[in-house]
């Protein structure tokens, strides 16, 4: 059997990240951490985009994953990183399975708007719930990883390693899914739903499944982010956050699972440096970057690496 080159490259990436991790300076580790969390969320956005859908409310699952992890820590008194990430995945899977029943019927701007409405409902609930800290949110701290109590540098390294492994596993999983029979239907649905139905596949079931998968990826990203940052608040489901995810997905392109990961890294780097050097114009820098990419590189940054632009 021929070994998939993308999988091989992803495994190599994980090994490189794990081996080099202890040698990275602190700023690089936190940059990579945030990029990987975002990258995981954007992997989900990429799957939706391949299906021809753009969600303007994916902050819903990002936030839900983070709050599930946070509540497990605060209320459930379980502060294991792996359990917290799992909680994020389970919570988002449950909610998206229900909402997906509705959303799977929607397309284009209506899909975007209904997902926006759902994410703003969560925002409206969170800002008024005093027990969850209202607009301030609350702090989250993972104390163990896989049952092993850690602290200080060891904990930081463990969090980084788990983030890296989770992100790469998510990317491999998505890559394999996209290569599978069901995964390949995504592009067909984007191109022509009627033909897909005539060929005997269920558009609705596929859209629903892809929606749940993308939500779970966002939930995992959110839970990882909660552990990494140590704080969560309702801004995670406010619409500009969702817009940011769409932004990164457009910046990256949908050509390969590497695109969202690289795109998230580019995005976070631009943001960190712009924020560092001109705190009042970093949004402007991002906006201009985004306009330039959309006008000159409709296939996203990935199209620079890929000769088959049409695939993007």
């Amino acid at each position, binding site marked *: 059997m021929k070994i998939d080159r993308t999988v091989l490259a992803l495994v190599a990436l994980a090994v490189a990240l794990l081996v080099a991790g202890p040698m990275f300076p602190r700023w690089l580790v936190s940059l990579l951490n945030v990029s990987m969390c975002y990258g995981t969320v954007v992997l989900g956005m990429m799957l939706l985009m391949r299906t021809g859908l753009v969600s303007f409310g994916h902050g819903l699952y990002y936030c839900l994953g983070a709050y599930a992890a946070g509540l497990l820590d605060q209320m459930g008194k379980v502060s294991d990183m792996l359990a917290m990430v799992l909680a994020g995945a389970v919570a988002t899977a449950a909610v998206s399975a229900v909402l997906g029943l509705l959303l799977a019927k929607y397309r284009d701007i209506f899909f975007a708007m209904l997902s926006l409405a759902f994410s703003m409902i969560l925002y409206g609930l969170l800002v008024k719930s005093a027990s969850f800290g209202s607009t301030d949110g609350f702090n989250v701290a993972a104390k163990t990883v896989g049952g092993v109590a850690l602290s200080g540098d060891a904990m930081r390294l463990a969090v980084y390693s788990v983030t890296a492994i989770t992100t790469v596993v998510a990317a491999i999983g998505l890559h394999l899914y996209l290569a599978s029979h069901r995964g390949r239907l995504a592009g067909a649905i984007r191109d022509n739903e009627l033909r897909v139905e005539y060929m005997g596949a269920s558009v609705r079931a596929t859209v629903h499944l892809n929606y749940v998968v993308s939500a779970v990826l966002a939930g995992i990203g959110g839970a990882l982010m909660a552990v990494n940052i140590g704080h969560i608040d309702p801004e995670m489901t406010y619409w500009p956050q969702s817009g940011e995810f769409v*932004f990164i997905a457009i910046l990256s392109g949908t050509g390969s699972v590497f695109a969202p990961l690289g795109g998230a890294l580019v995005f976070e780097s631009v943001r960190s440096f712009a924020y560092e050097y001109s705190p009042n*114009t*970093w949004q402007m820098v991002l906006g201009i970057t985004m306009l330039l990419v959309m006008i000159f590189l409709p296939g996203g940054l990935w199209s620079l690496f890929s000769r088959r632009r049409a695939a993007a």
Partner: protein
Amino acid sequence: MSQFVAVLVDGIVYSSWLFIIAVGLTLIYGVMKILNIAHGSLYALGAFAAVSLSTWWFAQGYPPMGSFAMLGLAAVLVGLVSGPVIERGLLRFLYGKDEVVLVLVTYALFLILEDFIKLVWGVDPLFVQGPNGETPYGLLGNFEIAGLTYPNYNLLLIAVAVISGLALAWALNRTRSGKLLLAVIHDREISAALGINVGLTYFVTFTIGAFLAAVGGALTAPTVSVVTGMGAEVIVMAFAVVVIGGLGSLQGAALGALIVGLVRAAAVHYQPEVELFSVYFVMAVVLILRPKGLFSGAEVRKI
């Protein structure tokens, strides 16, 4: 009873305010198929310009009543400058692209304008206020309903909303250029082939839309502290209004504004915890029951 009246009055005032903003959004979407996120920034620009102009007016020692003219001037200036610049400088190169791509273009524009506002006006909250604390909000006096006192400024808001709604409806259905616009909405390509200047139609539509956003901002400025980020809050509320009513529908925007306004006022008075939640809950329910909004025509299926 008085609480019911309060809900009704607050709701109608809030609806008028929402309508002024949402009607520009729905107009631009209806004609150009662009869901303009930057509409929120134009609203904020209108508010900031109103602060600057009226502060200048008060500083000159001119009669305070003239500050109303400054609010109007701010809206006109912002509309006439930003509308043409955005439409001619950016949007016209992107017509014909996917609707979702256009939403993202305006999102990028929103980010750029947010920082532009910070650069020009700074990050501190600003107020429309004269040296002796006089504001356009207080100048008009008050009126009373069922024992509750309201500033007359609210009546101005309602009047502006009604006038702009009626003026748009009249212009669309009763004038030559309005009818040409309806033709462009119906079929852009055929209209162009028949000799309608589609580019000009888009240009005028976007400028009017930008002007309406700025009017909303300028009229809001005296009632609140003008802060950066006010655009982000407004735009998603305006989305709720136009989506409930049906994207691109004038009557829809009016009905959507009334629904959102009354629901929010009721929530504020009876159950303050659900204030924000209630608006988006209504939006979701309407989208679930009538995916294309309350006012939406049948659409030809495309294969």
